[in-house]
């Protein structure tokens, strides 16, 4: 089950700097000039160790309750070859995509007015706090109760989950805009549309990216949970079906596919972020 954020507001990571700093930390040269093993190698060793532990435990238990990694990988391959993986992920991603578009449509203007007005910031704080702290399970149950089985529930739920992350981060981005640049725009008599395009948008883009990445991770998990209760396709639905048929290997295979998809999407967003912030890279 997805647990909601426990903070008073959705977390706001410093824009752009988090990934940059993390990368810098990872590549910091050692004082003695020695080179350690690559991070990829360490991650690979860690992954292989986890798989080995899993295989050993499965071999000891020797029960259907815990299939071996080889069985699960076999099922993953079956789902990919049969096309079931793509059709169900496509169903989930379409729902998240629509929900996310709705969240952006609501979160961007809400965040913008929150960043510009103290009144609006106070006005929207409580609703966003509530949205950000409703348990994922409650979203799933309400989605089923209100919209029944189908696509609408997961779409609305993923939108509701994503809105607070996007709005709060956009508000932070707007607040971060350098007042000196705004005065420069006034002195040169720039049109509001130019100020929006050339000052506000670039300034808040870093914050929007952070919000989108958090929101996507949250929305994706809650959407899958909602599919478990009230959908007729999608990854969450397939996990529930495997559970009902007591096919543990299938459940683990779908979960594995889910995690792989999340990692790929997250990496994709990170690559887009790197391209968008090429001007920062130029500074190095």
């Amino acid at each position, binding site marked *: 089950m997805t647990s909601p954020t426990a903070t008073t507001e959705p977390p706001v990571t410093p824009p752009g700097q988090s990934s940059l700093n993390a990368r810098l930390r990872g590549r910091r040269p050692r004082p003695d000039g020695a080179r350690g093993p690559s991070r990829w190698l360490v991650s690979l060793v860690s992954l292989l160790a986890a798989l080995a532990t899993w295989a050993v435990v499965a071999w000891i238990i020797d029960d259907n309750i815990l299939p071996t990694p080889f069985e699960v990988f076999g099922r993953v391959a079956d789902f990919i070859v049969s096309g079931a993986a793509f059709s169900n992920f496509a169903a989930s991603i379409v729902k998240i995509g629509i929900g996310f578009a709705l969240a952006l449509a609501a979160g961007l203007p809400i965040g913008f007015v929150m960043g510009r007005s103290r009144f609006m910031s106070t006005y929207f704080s409580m609703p966003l706090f509530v949205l950000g702290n409703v348990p994922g399970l409650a979203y799933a149950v309400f989605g089923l109760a209100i919209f029944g089985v189908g696509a609408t529930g997961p779409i609305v739920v993923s939108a509701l989950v994503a809105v607070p992350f996007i709005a709060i981060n956009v508000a932070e981005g707007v607040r971060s805009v*350098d007042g*000196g*640049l705004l*005065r*420069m725009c*006034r*002195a*040169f*008599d*720039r049109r509001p549309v*130019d100020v929006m395009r*050339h*000052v506000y948008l*670039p300034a808040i883009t870093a914050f929007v990216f952070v919000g989108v990445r958090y929101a996507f991770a949250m929305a994706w998990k809650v959407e899958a949970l909602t599919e478990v209760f009230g959908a007729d396709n999608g990854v969450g639905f397939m996990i529930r079906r495997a559970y009902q048929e007591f096919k543990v290997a299938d459940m683990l295979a779908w979960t594995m596919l889910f995690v792989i998809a999340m990692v790929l999407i997250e990496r994709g967003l990170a690559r887009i972020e790197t391209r968008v912030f090429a*001007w920062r890279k*130029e*500074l190095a």
Partner: protein
Amino acid sequence: MASIEIDGLVKDYQNRQGKQTRVLDGIDLSISGETFVSIVGPSGSGKTTLLNIVSGIESLSNGSVRLRAGDRDAKVGYVFQDPRLLPWRTVTQNLRFVQHDRSGWEQRAQHYLDLVGLGHLGDRYPAQLSGGQQQRIGIARAFSVEPDILLMDEPFSHLDAMTSRSLREHLERIWLESRRTVMFVTHDVTEAVQLSDRIVVLAPGGRIHETIEVDLPRPRRASDPAVAMLQAEVLARFEVMEAAA
């Protein structure tokens, strides 16, 4: 011909307790034609506030300010204390951003970048430039809009002495070529004497203390004896003003 007409300008600020403070008190000033006017005065005399009101960045409490170029409103360029360049845009894109008239802007931008000696850095981002280079871009940006009136707010105050001296020479050269109406705020008397046709001295409390005409040949150098003598005289008048205050 461009002109700045300031009549009875008053500016009051109100603090959180509701107490009013007057920072400009009845400023009357007329600047017209190809004139370089410096506003000098001690800290807190309202120099920057005056410039901000003239540019429209700040509102006034009383009086009037008119910026005209013939029978139309004057086009204004502004050079700030700090460069205020968009960090996510290249140098050339920063100059493009402020253009009202996009026709021929590339030639104009390149021309003024060449004049400040940075014509080869148009593709760089601001953070790839030194502080002095960024400020030169700020100057080129202001000139590139072909303003009728140029407002400058202590543009060299954050720079070291050598860079600041070099930029003054750049500025004077560009001004001699383009001959705009300039209102230049500074606390540096050397700067004011070297660059100005007229120096307006603001006293604490935001009043004009006196106006000094500078009738020296151009281009000027800070080391010219005539410049040094006038500088000493202006400083002496400053001391008298401060003693009286």
